[in-house]
């Protein structure tokens, strides 16, 4: 199990905030009866989890398998043999040997219908403009449990709408059903208690503290767990309806933690990233910086191959660009001035192809470039902001080559760059030949003689190795083509065939070569890699990367007074001037 400091919630066990994994109860199996069917449940299960084991759905809003129990929504009420004539919340009650649970009796159904009606009494008629449509628990449970018309004949309560909570989160109080999942998440999992419940009764709201926006790096997860459209992602807001986008798995490229994600895309545009469940890497969470990495797949992409610098630059067809690159590189091959730069953003297959290309060009020098490091914490954020530094180093070892730092690039006459992150700009102008296989337009691609459009990691099959030595694979998650973009190894293959060699025609072929050459990947095959990834034991880190201590509350933002002075009006103003 990885020691990322994350809270471990194996077994779907509900529990108090920090000590979720450390309840020293050994797992025990218990037999219960749900709707007359026998279930073998873990003794730590609550009734919802026990019913889930045989596919019986008990609806819930405020319960979350990884958060503490609130018991607030009353939607999961069921009948049990322990409490005849009463309904008990399925999220709170633990299983007991021989317990009989009934989830489809008239009383339970009436409660479900009534709960839905109460939740909807003050709910605004917002479906047409609410982003949560299509993935909203209220909608789904309404059709399932309460398909009745409204009975209210009066006005609904008005509350603040469109409250900016933080850089990524916007809050709509009218849609909020006060399940408090967001509050509990920030308290327990993100461990930055930036949200709280204010007011009471029907006027309750979720609120941030005065002077303290919701600027935690994990604020995006509150949007994921919000069952309704109260907390919404400002970055994704109004961009697309969720049933138009296709969900496809991949791995985040924001840092070396390699959180598993789903890329939601339509056509060749990626719309958002959602965390994908992987108990050993990121559970079901992801950080905000990672959520925004899909922008690099959309914005300022190199779409068409280009030859020439400055005013001679012209978009050309791929074959012409490859021919031009070969024409520029061929005379310099073997002369000793050729270098290959490989970015830590490349997949292993792209790195392998770059080494192969370098070998064909008889390049003596291989450089390692990367995005600059950032801050880290003890949960999901690593300082190394490149997804595959470990992988590129493994590939270099497999090819028996030494990697130099990119700043040592003086003396190189021709450079082939597999991805252009972190290339030193001022030294590029001194190159005679610069062929860049690049994903985004930036200052370095403007200096290139030939630019070949590279597919992003979210758009290609490949493998990445994270800081822990975990080999994870990515898929072609945005399948629609963007211009002439192709994976880096595909461009290398074309360059190689122009130079008289042969390259990889598929990611699986590249991986096969790596598996043959590297002792760490012996016996692995690309098509049989598991969806969850696997830890390469020989790459386990000798020491954990430097982790910043948890920031003290308020340590990283400008704060106002910690308490609200007496006499300050709180909550009545429609747009929350006191926040």
């Amino acid at each position, binding site marked *: 199990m990885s020691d990322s400091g994350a809270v471990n919630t194996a077994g779907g066990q509900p529990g108090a905030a920090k000590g979720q994994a450390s309840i020293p109860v050994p797992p025990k199996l218990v037999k219960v009866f749900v709707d007359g069917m026998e279930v073998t449940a873990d003794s730590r299960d609550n009734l919802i989890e026990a019913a889930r084991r045989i596919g019986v759905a008990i609806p819930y809003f405020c319960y979350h398998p990884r958060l503490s129990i609130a018991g607030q929504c009353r939607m999961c009420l069921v009948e049990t043999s322990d409490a005849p004539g009463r309904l008990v919340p399925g999220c709170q009650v633990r299983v007991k040997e021989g317990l009989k649970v009934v989830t489809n009796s008239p009383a339970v159904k009436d409660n479900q219908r009534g709960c839905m009606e109460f939740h909807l009494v003050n709910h605004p008629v917002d479906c047409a403009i609410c982003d949560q449509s*299509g993935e909203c628990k209220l909608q789904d449970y309404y059709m399932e449990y309460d398909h*009745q018309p409204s009975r209210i004949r009066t006005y609904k309560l008005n509350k603040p709408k469109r409250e900016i909570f933080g850089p990524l989160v916007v809050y709509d109080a009218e849609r909020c059903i006060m399940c408090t999942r967001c509050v509990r998440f920030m308290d327990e999992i993100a461990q930055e208690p930036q949200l709280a419940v204010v007011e009471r009764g029907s006027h309750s709201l979720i609120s941030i503290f005065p002077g303290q926006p919701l600027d935690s790096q994990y604020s995006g997860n509150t949007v994921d767990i919000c069952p309704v459209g109260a907390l919404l992602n400002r970055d994704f807001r109004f961009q697309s309806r969720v049933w138009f986008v296709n969900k496809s798995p991949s791995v985040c490229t924001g840092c070396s933690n390699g959180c598993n994600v789903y890329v939601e895309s339509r056509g060749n545009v990626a719309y958002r990233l959602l965390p994908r469940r992987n108990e050993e890497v990121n559970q079901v969470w992801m950080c905000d910086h990672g959520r925004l990495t899909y922008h690099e797949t959309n914005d300022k992409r190199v779409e068409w191959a280009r030859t020439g610098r400055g005013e001679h630059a012209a978009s050309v067809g791929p074959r012409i660009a490859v021919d031009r690159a070969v024409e520029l590189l061929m005379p310099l091959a073997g002369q000793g001035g050729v270098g290959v730069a490989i970015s830590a953003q490349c997949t292993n297959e792209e790195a392998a192809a770059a080494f192969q290309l370098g070998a064909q060009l008889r390049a003596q020098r291989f450089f390692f470039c990367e995005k600059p490091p950032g801050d880290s914490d003890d949960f999901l954020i690593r300082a190394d902001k490149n997804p595959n530094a470990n992988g590129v180093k493994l590939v270099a070892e497999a090819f028996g080559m030494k990697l130099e730092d990119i700043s040592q690039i003086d003396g190189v006459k021709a450079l082939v760059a597999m991805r252009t992150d972190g290339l030193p700009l001022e030294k590029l102008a001194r190159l005679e030949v610069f062929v860049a296989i690049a994903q985004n337009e930036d200052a370095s691609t403007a200096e290139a003689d030939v630019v070949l459009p590279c597919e992003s990691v979210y758009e290609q099959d490949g493998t990445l190795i994270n800081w822990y030595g975990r080999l994870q694979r990515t898929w072609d998650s945005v399948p629609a083509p963007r211009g002439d973009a192709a994976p880096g190894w595909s461009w290398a293959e074309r360059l190689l065939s122009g130079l008289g060699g042969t390259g990889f025609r598929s990611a699986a072929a590249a991986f096969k070569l790596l598996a043959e050459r590297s002792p760490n990947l012996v016996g692995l095959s690309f098509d049989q890699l598991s969806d969850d990834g696997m830890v390469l034991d020989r790459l386990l880190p000798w020491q954990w990367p430097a982790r910043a201590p948890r920031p003290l509350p308020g340590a990283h933002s400008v704060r106002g007074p910690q308490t609200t002075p007496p006499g300050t009006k709180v909550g009545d103003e429609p747009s929350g001037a006191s926040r």
Partner: protein
Amino acid sequence: MTEPAPQHDPLALEEDLPSAPMTINLGPSHPAMHGTVRLVVTVDGETITEAIPEIGFLHRGFSKSSENSTWHQVLPYTDRLNYVSPILNNTAYIMGVEKLIGIKCTERAEYLRVVGGEISRICDHLTCIGAIGLELGAYTVFLYAIEARELLWDRIAELTGARVTVSWTRISGVASDMPAGWEQHLRDCLPRVIELTNEIDTLLTNNRIFIDRTRGIGVISGEEAIDWGFTGPCLRATGVNYDVRKAHPYSVYDRMDFEIPLGSRGDTYDRYILRLAEIRQSHRIVIQALDQMPPGPIVTDDWRYALPPKKDVFGSIEGVMAHFKLIMEGIKVPPGEVYVYTEGANGELGFHIVSNGQGKPYAIQVRGPGLPILSALPRLIKGHAVADLIPIFDSINMIGGEVEQ
């Protein structure tokens, strides 16, 4: 003195002429090959010895498309199956979905479906009879039939909003009620339709040429017809009394008083006469349905299956959520498999529907009444002249849309 000129014996001449069977291609682009069918006929002189029908030119992928549309989005596809009597198609499909859900149609909507369905049936029969007349040279008959059909299509347009592609039925109901004054308008135009039908009757039924061209042409016995899968007017022309509306009454047909005309010989003439008689019976049914129609809602108020009224959609969260889920995800039909069968204009129109509990059909296959009848076409035309092919093909009223989906 010269010898008399040798007599030319026509028959002797023909025996001397060398002849071989010839294969002719009819269609698919041929004015008489309705619904784009290709017939490759082998003729010996004028007599057809063999015929191979080839279909598929109108196959539009109804089954595959319906697997990728919600239950209501399939309705416009069903219009285009038997495009001459679309309300009957809509009704049959929706009855299948209602059977799977286990929901009943509202009473007023049942009567409305009967009215709309029988008007569609009259239109289909008029088209068929008009085509028979047209292709045998009786152009006036065609014009009379089209005039009658136009009157009815105008009524359908007023009722549903479209002349042909109506998509009018909904789960447990219909989409729109009769507009004000429509019932009287229909009652006023039906006598004209019957008048035109009677004109066609007087023009064709006792017409020597027509009888010569259709009597005894394309004969099939009842037993063989059943073996070939015939249903509807083509089967009843052979004398077999099978009409789904009487054998297994559905909707409110059990409250209607009407007869099933039967033929005796199973030839083209009987098929024509039968359709004429069925127009009159359908007229009877329409009048009775209009008389018996009760007031009431035209669709259920269960929001799992019918869209909420617009004032609820715009005014309440429940309404907008129901509307939303029904449109975007489709109506959730419980899993199961049914075969629903109704009396379409050409025979038993059936739908084999499989649902897996989701908002889209899992599989739909149409039992178009025309497919078995078309498969028997070679059997019907063998031994007849090429000129007989035309009335036979007209009389079976093969509609390409329902045969080829």
